[in-house]
């Protein structure tokens, strides 16, 4: 259930976006009807919008200046990005470009907008999923915790082998658990479902426990707890990793947009707005 303030904010922002789109399309049509070049106007609108998008990154770096809250800038960034998508399609006539340069420009802009939208979605949904996990762990320390779990598991298995002389637990560890505990694992399916490989490991461990002595079974239970913790770490690794890495793609698309847009303007004006 959304907070009423958030809902109100979204409603206002959506109305402003709709109004901007209508204003843009009307002004572009006016330009077309008044025998000006509508693509010229839509292009400059698009350029202005892209420039506004860049302001958000600048605002984050200029934290000391009184330029308003970053949260507000983020709202402007988000809705301006959506506005860009609409104006872009008007600018291109809702057609996919044919030239190599134009395709590059389009891919860059569309990639920026899509990754932005995906990032926006994840930033709205994944934190809730992380909260549901129950634990808090810094993303950068997940690898360290994972190494600790792996070391502890190896000690338990070795101790069990020395104590019982049985290799049932060590075989299970070697075949299944070692891979799961060796490093943090990123599971895409966790981003949109409740996927977890833990159940599969637990089933195999339960099957192996029937062949174990009681000492081994005790060690196996401890190993199962470690696997559960590792599963939790993987969940953090996946969700936090998505939250932190979508920006990589977003930037990889958006930064090349700057030279591409500038060159596009130069080419367009040099070649007669063709």
């Amino acid at each position, binding site marked *: 259930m959304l907070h009423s303030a958030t809902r109100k904010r979204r409603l206002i922002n959506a109305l402003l976006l709709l109004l901007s789109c209508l204003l843009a399309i009307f002004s572009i049509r006016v330009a077309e009807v008044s025998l000006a070049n509508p693509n010229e106007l839509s292009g400059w609108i698009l350029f202005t919008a892209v420039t506004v998008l860049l302001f958000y990154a600048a605002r984050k770096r200029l934290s000391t200046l009184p330029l308003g809250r970053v949260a507000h800038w983020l709202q402007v960034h988000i809705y301006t990005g959506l506005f860009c998508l609409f104006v872009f399609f008007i600018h291109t006539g809702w057609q996919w470009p044919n030239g190599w340069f134009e395709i590059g420009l389009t891919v860059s802009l569309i990639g920026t907008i899509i990754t932005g939208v995906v990032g926006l979605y994840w930033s709205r949904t994944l934190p809730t999923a992380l909260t549901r996990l129950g634990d808090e762990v810094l993303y950068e320390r997940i690898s360290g915790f994972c190494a600790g779990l792996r070391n502890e598991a190896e000690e338990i298995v070795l101790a069990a082998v020395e104590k019982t002389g049985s290799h049932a637990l060590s075989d299970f560890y070697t075949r299944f658990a070692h891979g799961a505990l060796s490093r943090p694992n990123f599971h895409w399916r966790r981003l949109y479902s409740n996927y977890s490989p833990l159940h599969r490991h637990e089933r195999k461990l339960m099957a192996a426990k029937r062949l174990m002595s009681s000492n081994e079974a005790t060690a196996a239970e401890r190993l199962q707890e470690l696997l559960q913790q590792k599963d939790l770490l993987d969940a953090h690794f996946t969700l936090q990793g998505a939250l932190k890495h979508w920006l990589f793609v977003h930037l990889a698309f958006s930064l090349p947009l700057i030279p591409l847009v500038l060159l596009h303007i130069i080419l367009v004006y040099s070649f007669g707005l*063709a």
Partner: protein
Amino acid sequence: MRKQLQDISFRVSRYFRPLEPWHCGGLENGEQCPLGPDRKGRCRAQLALQDDQGQASRACRPVANLRARRQRVGWIAMIAVLAVLTLGFSYDSWKPLAMPGPLSVHHMSFGGEDCDSCHQAAVQPKSSWVSSLLGTHPSVDDAKNCIACHQIGEVPENPHSLPSDQLLSLTEAMNAHTAQLDTGNRVLSASLLVNVAQQFVGEEAKTPSCTVCHNEHTGSDQITQVSNQQCAVCHTASFADISAHNDFTDYPANRRTQIVFNHNSHLNKHFLDEDSSDLAPQNCIDCHRADSMGKKMEVRGFDTACSSCHLEQITGENRTSAKGIAMLAFPAVDTETLLERGVDVGSWPADSDAELTPLNLLMIGLLNPELSPQLTQLRALDLYDLRDASDAELDLVYHAMWTLKQSYFEMQRGGAQSMLASLQKQLVTDSGRAREVLGLLSPDLIDAAVSQAFPNLAEEMQQWLIKGLPALRLVAKTENEAQEATAINKVTEGENNEDWLAAAAGADEDDWLEDAADDTGDEDWLSEAAEDDSDDWLDEAVADSQDADDDDWLNEAAQEESSDDWLDEAVVDSEDTTDDDAWLNEATQDESDDWLDEAVAESAEPDEGDDWLNEAAGDDADSLDDDWLEDSLDDDNASLFDDENDIAVEAIDESKSVVTVPELLAIEDRAAAGGWYFEDFYLRYRPSGHADRLIVAWVELLINNTDSAMQSAMMSNVLSKDSPGTCIKCHSVDRQQIAGITRQTVNWLGKKASLTKHGFNSFAHQSHIAVIKHANSDLGVDEVDGCQACHKPNRDSDSSLAYEQEILADFQSDFYNLDKQQCIECHQPETQLANCTQCHNYHIGERVLVGMKIGFQSEAGKVKQTFSTQLE
């Protein structure tokens, strides 16, 4: 309770600085160094624990933080793109990289890399591209490249390609027209969009760039996109949809038709006539067809639509009067009166009753321009009866007749082309046109006609050329005219610089000849002849001639006491006028036959050398009837044909079989296929059929040269509705005032569609006919009714009255104007058929694609197509 993965307590969990660019590499193993790396990514622990040898005792590789790595990825991506662009545009073949999209099929021939054909930036240094952001709008300059190939109207850069003043006048006319209309059902404010746009229309709209409506590089073949609102923004009388469109007040016809055709009289009268009902067309498309573009309906050609009824009118076949146009005449002249009044115009055909034709007047005017102002007066004179003519008129006749003789003489000697130079000079025409008007006149026919009309023309002209014209010595009938005659005589004497003429002015009739002979001394016979009175010299000349061998046949012929008519005609028909026989020509021309009587009385026995004549006379010696000879010499070539008839008759008798002998047709019927012929001292011309080149040439030659009387007369003759040819009966003449001068144009063709010339309106007849056919096939309505669904005949109109008007638009059509409701039934916005450009053109005038030169060029071993848009 499960143990927390991480204790977030600051005492246990070390603070992680995400804004720092580096973090400890041991963090991944849970062995984070408390020092951590510095901002340059160097491990502080490693630096601190270096031993004396400088070897690090502990391996640690600092790892860049996510934030730093993210920035690094962004910059790498941007630098990579910049590198690709720099490399791409520095490479010679950069054009495919910049090409925004494939060209339409219309411009596909330019290829993918021939940007400089349209864009001058392609040949400019790339450093200048940036300056284009601040300079002149490049689309304006690049539009010149469009116009280099596409000739679009008179002023291509203007709206509708029309001159500004014409646009202004059209706008004013449209405003005035709109003001007269009932605007009750009109929505003058087309829409909010248009109203707002009208406020933003800038100066650039006065010369809109091509790219406003034409978008290339879209990959589509449809590069023209014009909305109704774009049309409406400029038009002061705009409307929201087609239902508010003006009623058709002058559409489809805004002027009288080029071909004079009265649908009502044909449909309701001529086609119902029993004689022509089987020739009548069955439906509209028997006479009309869509043009090659399927747009305008054209009139089918004469051969298809008109010839069945009108061909004989042109060739004159069904005329009771003369079937050929009297082009040249050898007129009858009242020489008796002229001689009485002291005017010697030489000999003129006594049997002629021809009158001067306009072309005669033209010939006189061309040869003697001084007479041009008086030709109207000459035309009004009755040359056959000059008894009441004034001295001034006789003077005019005197000069005109000699000029006409000179003209005929030159034509006889030099052919019809002797008039070409004068025609070209006087009527300002090209040599081709001048040749067409006379080129078909055979020299043989001229010679035969002139010889018959003026058998002694050569001698007359010889004398004239040697001595000049015989003196004009007007004899005044009354005292009042005496003074005028004296003045004219003086003027005439002054015109002739020859002394002999001055001396002869007061002498007897033939004194001038005597003096002339004295001057030359060459013509002894002439001297002797001049010494005697009147025609006595001729008698002697004939008497002397009895000894001459050449003239023996004449003695024999005279002995038979036959009529002299055969001799007259024989002499006239003689093609060769030798020097020896010249005296005979003149003698024959003389009305007095006394010389012949004397010659007959003194004649000797028939000479054996003239057997042909003896035999001819011997056949009927008792009563010499020379009719056979007369008949044989009567018609141009009849004698030969008659001989053949005789032979044919004999053959019939011998074989006892029945053979139909072709009847000898009259000369004008023999010229039915077209051409010149000589009849009754007229050189006539019969058109060979429709669009006869000579008739067309005369019409075109004279159509705008009616400033003189002779030309007007010629025009009236050639362009008369009743004249053979009857061009103007069907081909209307448009008159336009250009700079105060009336220019006339004969509409030789009906309304013809032009592939290059475009008006404001465009209607696709062919597609509408298809629709009508489809609809009618269901309704069982024939095609005539299909056409009349739109073109409703106005049975009360009389379109022929329009051709008596000067103003082309002042006319009454045979059909009512179209009803726009019929258009609106289909042309609705939802059918996508309601665009302005569906029925209207933007570019008005000539639209021609020029300047494209396609060639091939060998380049690096490959043959490559080359194109040039340079106008040659």
